[in-house]
């Protein structure tokens, strides 16, 4: 039995736990603070597994060099029993170490030390077998990956605490096309004096001249000529501002259905969302019921891991701030948002983006509403816990400059931390690089932590295809990310017309990646609530079913199991301009 067989088996049970929390019909708030006890428990468990993995790594001195991975059996019984067996085995022999690792949960240096010890044994013992998928990784590439993953993890310096800094919230604004997302946010930014009045006057003047005076506020965010000319947002705009207690990174998503791919990229970086609803009569209905984007956006938010939601009912000035209208929309939406999409507690706020009511201060126009205004609500979002001590993962969301010796990119640190002079690798192209400079949205700090949007300058030797949006920056070591093209995915099928069958092609979205993929095997359909197998090898997956499937992408991509890194393990499938399924990566094949 090779090491990887174990990894596979071990993670399985863990993932089931995870899945139950995340994909259950009740969509319990896994990221919430309320379940922190549970969370930490799970963390500890993950650690134990980690140590177990290392142990087996070390304990198999006669694993053949580069031995091909045994064919993974699909037998479930085996999978579910294997973890407990191995864990017991580990507990007997390696109890002390496992406990040490589990305990060192909070102290990184110590944990790294243990890791190193284990690693020394491992390297001393023998070459472990790598996950040798049938993918035509050239021998060179495979060797390269092997070397990277076997490099010892560098002990990290303890992080300087960032106590004097406000919590960061990545906030995405979504909604049906023409709901007024950009205008609402543009006006908010203007009221917060993010845009000076001279620029605003200029926008107003220019917009009026081109006959679109109502678009003036949207122009704060819609900056390209094309967007202004056509009056629609096409790509996610990003601005940062600060409220009383938080730093907000605002992402303004496009609402048009043709640009949902951009919206997904933006959402994958967000922790919280504002869903903008057009309150005008007839407009809410088209956006919500008749194939509008409201539903799809809401479902995407949830499946991409956003749990906190504000619903801003916009344009209520067009219906004279009618309370009945607000309540009608609220009632309609809350059923959908809580029951179908699984948001715990969406908050509804009446606003007007154009005239600016209820944005930064409460207004007298709406006597019947005494809740907080939009800005206060944004301020009350809870910042997500950041996996700072985790392995380094920076998702590249944009490449600004590629030169042969230097490249500049922007991206989000999903876990870990990075500082100047770190040695990193760009996956999936496996390019080595050194960090020459990194800066986040606040200032040029020396160190950037998980959650930050960073601007990185890397030095190395690059080719034009070394980096793309959707590449991931990682460090060498056992925690590294091995790009692959075949994955085992657990998914929920959305409301679709043509079912998913074996061989269906779709676009795969994960963090900022978009690649085409094929459903190469439908393993089994499962019961949504308890993960029981309903049918082996189903002929097709109709709407609403959950299933475990194998997918194969056209090229190597940098995604990994959900249990390893949450944001890199969430996937969404789209086909023919519709979202057909969403799920999590169970395993790399």
């Amino acid at each position, binding site marked *: 039995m090779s090491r990887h067989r174990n990894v596979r088996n071990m993670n399985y049970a863990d993932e089931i736990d995870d899945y139950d929390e995340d994909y259950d019909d009740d969509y319990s708030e896994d990221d919430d603070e309320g379940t922190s006890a549970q969370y930490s428990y799970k963390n500890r468990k993950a650690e134990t597994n980690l140590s177990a993995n290392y142990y087996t790594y070390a304990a198999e001195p006669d694993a053949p060099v580069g031995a091909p991975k045994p064919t993974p059996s699909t037998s479930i019984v085996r999978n579910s029993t294997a973890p407990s067996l191995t864990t017991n085995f580990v507990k007997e022999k390696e109890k002390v170490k496992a406990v040490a690792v589990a305990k060192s949960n909070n102290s990184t240096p110590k944990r790294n030390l243990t890791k190193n010890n284990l690693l020394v044994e491992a390297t001393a013992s023998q070459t472990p077998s790598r996950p040798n998928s049938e993918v035509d990784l050239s021998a060179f590439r495979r060797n390269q990956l092997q070397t990277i993953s076997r490099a010892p993890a560098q002990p990290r310096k303890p992080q300087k605490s960032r106590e004097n800094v406000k919590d960061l919230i990545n906030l995405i604004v979504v909604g049906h096309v023409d709901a007024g997302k950009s205008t609402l946010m543009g006006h908010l930014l203007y009221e917060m004096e993010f845009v000076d009045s001279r620029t605003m006057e200029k926008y107003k003047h220019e917009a009026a001249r081109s006959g679109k005076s109502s678009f003036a506020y949207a122009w704060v965010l819609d*900056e*390209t*000529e*094309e*967007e202004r000319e*056509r009056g629609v947002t*096409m*790509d*996610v*705009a*990003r*601005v940062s501002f600060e409220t009383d207690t938080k730093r907000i990174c605002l992402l303004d998503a496009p609402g*048009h259905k*043709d*640009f949902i*791919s951009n919206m997904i990229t933006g959402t994958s970086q967000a922790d919280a969302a504002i869903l903008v609803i057009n309150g005008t009569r007839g407009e809410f209905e088209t956006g919500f019921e008749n194939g509008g984007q409201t539903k799809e956006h809401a479902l995407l938010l949830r499946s991409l891991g956003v749990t906190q939601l504000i619903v801003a009912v916009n344009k209520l000035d067009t219906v004279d701030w009618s309370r009945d209208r607000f309540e009608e929309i609220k009632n309609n939406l809350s059923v959908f948002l809580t029951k179908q999409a699984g948001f715990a507690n969406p908050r509804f706020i009446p606003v007007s983006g154009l005239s600016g009511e209820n944005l930064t201060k409460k207004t007298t126009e709406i006597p019947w509403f005494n809740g907080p205004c939009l800005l206060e609500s944004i301020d009350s979002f809870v910042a997500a816990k950041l996996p700072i001590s985790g392995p380094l993962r920076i998702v590249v*969301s*944009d*490449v*600004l400059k*590629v030169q042969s010796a230097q490249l500049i990119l*922007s991206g989000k640190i999903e876990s870990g931390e990075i500082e100047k002079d770190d040695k990193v690798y760009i996956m999936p192209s496996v390019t080595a690089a050194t960090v020459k400079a990194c800066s986040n949205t606040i200032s040029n700090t020396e160190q950037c932590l998980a959650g930050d949007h960073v601007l990185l300058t890397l030095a190395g030797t690059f080719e034009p*295809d070394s*980096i*793309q*949006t959707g590449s991931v920056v990682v460090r060498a070591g056992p925690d590294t990310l091995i790009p692959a093209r075949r994955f085992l995915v657990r998914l929920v099928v959305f409301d*679709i*017309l*043509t*079912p998913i*069958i*074996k*061989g*269906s*092609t779709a*676009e795969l979205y994960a963090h900022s990646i*978009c690649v*085409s993929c*094929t459903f*190469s095997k439908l393993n089994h359909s499962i019961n949504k609530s308890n993960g029981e197998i309903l049918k*082996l*090898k189903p*002929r*097709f997956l*109709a*709407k609403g079913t959950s299933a475990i499937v194998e997918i194969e992408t056209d090229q190597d991509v940098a995604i990994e199991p959900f249990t390893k890194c949450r944001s890199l393990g969430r996937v969404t499938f*789209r*086909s*023919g*301009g*519709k979202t057909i399924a969403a799920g999590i990566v169970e395993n790399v094949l």
Partner: protein
Amino acid sequence: MKQFKRQIEKDGPGFVTLMAEEAEDMWHIYNLIRVGDIVKAPTIRKVVTETSTGTTSSQRVHTMLTISIESIDFDPGEQELHLKGRNIVENDIVKMGAYHTIDLEPNRKFTIEKTEWDCIDLERLNLALDPAQSADVAAVVLHEGLANVCLLTPAMTLTRAKIDMTIPRKRKGFTSQHEKGLEKFYEAVSAAFIRHVDLNIIKCVIIASRGFVKENFMNYLITYADANGKKFTTDQKAKFLLVHSSSGFKHALKEVLETPQVAARLADTKAQAEVKALNQFLELMSTEPERAFYGYNHVSRANNDLAIETLMIADSLFRSQNIETRKKFVKLVESVREQNGKVHIFSSMHVSGEQLAQLTGCAAILRFPMPDLDDEPMSDDEEQQQNEQE
């Protein structure tokens, strides 16, 4: 394709002398020739002669060879067919039983001899000889940063160029980066288009994208062609067709072929009929799953009950190395025809065919629901077969 001589008995032995004229014909030949067939064609052989003193000299000699095929290799990009086999006819320079590889190209006369010509073979042969069918269409599917320039012939979709570029996203204060990136991308696609698409031959050009990319690209292309001294005439401009697609991946072509605009222009091409049939199958899957089945086991069971209305089958199954497998599928096709069922043989070079191939290569729409079939598990050996073919 030109035919010079033909002497064939149905389901019996026979030979035919042909000459391929264009790329499309090579595909037909690839589907016609199987291991075990005998091919006679002109070829070049390197001959090494050794003199009595032991010095050797090699020469390339043109000669006519007859070989019994052992392996077939098709290069869709170069339009060449490499046939490897043993020499079976005594020749001045090549010994009996010596191995040789014949490279078949368009405009070379050759003879194929088979011990058995079945109905699929004959159909393929007649199809290839039919000069009427050829609707040459070029298609560009694109989204920001990715474009596929394809040529669609009745039996094939050839990707001529794939442009994959990173375009910087819009960023506060740096919008020009994004616009510059787009411009570069359009330029690359236009260059590829001009290089690979001859507007004098092509009957229709489809440009498909989401959003406004197609209009922008079209405008860019026209100015690009103008600037490079290849100004489009009004006639040529009329060949362009702008269609919506959800992405720039190759599989978006399937969506494109479904749109009514394109359907009207391409009426009755093979690609279109295939897409239609497959869509009907998929729709049935969701509405009446008991009438849509795939996999040989299910399909042949349905056939035994005379239930098949439309049979879809991938041509890759007929290229099978295994004679038994081929016979099995030929029998299935014949039997469905006897029952007045429709049979579509999908070209595996089309997007729809690629999908069918993934679906075990064999699917059927039934006349009436057969719910009890559903309970039967799909057999494992089907997948094995598929893997063998791959």
